[in-house]
């Protein structure tokens, strides 16, 4: 069973991502903060995390990415970071933290699906 973890404090975003990616043989898990994302990752070992960079709480998306990519047992989990702003410094920080891919909000369902497939299959971005 493939697992995808969606991390965003906005429930609506998580639900939209879930219906878009729902497929047989795949489970979409939810987390609403960076802290919860780390706990669930250690616990559930998802294949992929789609995570917003900006979230309220002490751990944002970049910090959560850094933590997950540093741990031996979770470093292979793929991470796509979401950002609502074209901010080059975010992209740089995210890449340094080890994110596999980036994605701008808002996005269309087709773009989301393609991005997820590409990241899961180790294809570079087109």
């Amino acid at each position, binding site marked *: 069973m493939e697992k995808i973890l969606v991390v965003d404090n906005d429930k609506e975003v998580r639900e939209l991502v879930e219906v878009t990616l729902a497929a047989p043989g795949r489970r979409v898990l939810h987390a609403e903060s960076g802290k919860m994302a780390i706990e669930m990752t250690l616990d559930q070992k998802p294949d992929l995390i789609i995570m*917003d960079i*900006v979230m309220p709480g002490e751990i944002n998306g970049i910090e959560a990415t850094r933590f997950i990519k540093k741990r031996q047992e979770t470093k292979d989990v793929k991470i796509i970071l979401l950002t609502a702003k074209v901010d080059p410094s975010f992209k740089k920080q995210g890449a340094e933290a080890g994110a596999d891919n980036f994605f701008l909000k808002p996005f269309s*369902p*087709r773009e989301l699906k393609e991005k997820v497939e590409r990241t899961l299959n180790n294809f570079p971005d087109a």
Partner: protein
Amino acid sequence: MTQGADNPHCGVEEKSLTKKQVLKYAEDLAVLFRAEKNQRLRLEESNAQLKKYAEDLRLSHQELQDFLLTASHDLQEPLRKAVTFGDLLKTRFRQQLGPAGFEYIDRLAGAVQRMQRLLDDLSAYSRLTIETHPRAPANMGEVISDAVAGVKSQAEALGGSLKLEIQPNPVLEVDAPQIGQMFKCLVANGLKFRKRGVPPELVIRSRRTDDGKWEFTVRDNGIGFEEKYLDRIFKPFERLHPSGEYDGAGMGLTVCRKIVERHGGEITAKSSAGNGAAFFVVLPEKQSPPRS
């Protein structure tokens, strides 16, 4: 991926989605799902069509094989009659025929016999696709030495030899009786096309190829053939040497090639007139899903 630009309100601080964005997304999602569903349907349809083509092809191939088998069988019947009446002629009209008439009838009988052999070979060939055995891992050293035992003693009786250098000895997934038949056919040729006055020396070797398959070489020290005829010798009823000196129907190598191809392998040969011949058979270790 620059949709952020269309949405100036979607800033970092104000990051929750607007009603409008959610609605737009839901619409896009509906469109996407519909497109995916159509694509799935089209794919299923063309898959079903492909399956049907494959089945039709298999059936018509099967029909052709069946036809060949029945035809060669049915053609034997009139030939047997010809032989019978030839014998009758010889016994009942001995006087009238005289020695010349006798000889003509013998030649007639000879021609009929050749025809019968051709038909036998043809039906053996078409049975090949019908009578298959399940593919199972087989020790090639054993398969080959069993298959060539008869030819080996013939070669030794002629003062020659047949050596097996199956080293390393692979275990391959094969239809063992068929593969055995193929090796037998190759060494039988090696023995048959020997040089007059030279003891036949036959060798079978194996080696692993760079791409992980197995190559078997059957080499002889016989009369050889001119390599420009290489394509011809694998075709039905093609023979390079005069039938007066070397008998045969010209079906041996055709059958060999068919067996090898049915195993997903390849067969070829190297030779030059007067210098012996070498036949190369390359077989994969495992069989991909069965082919017909």
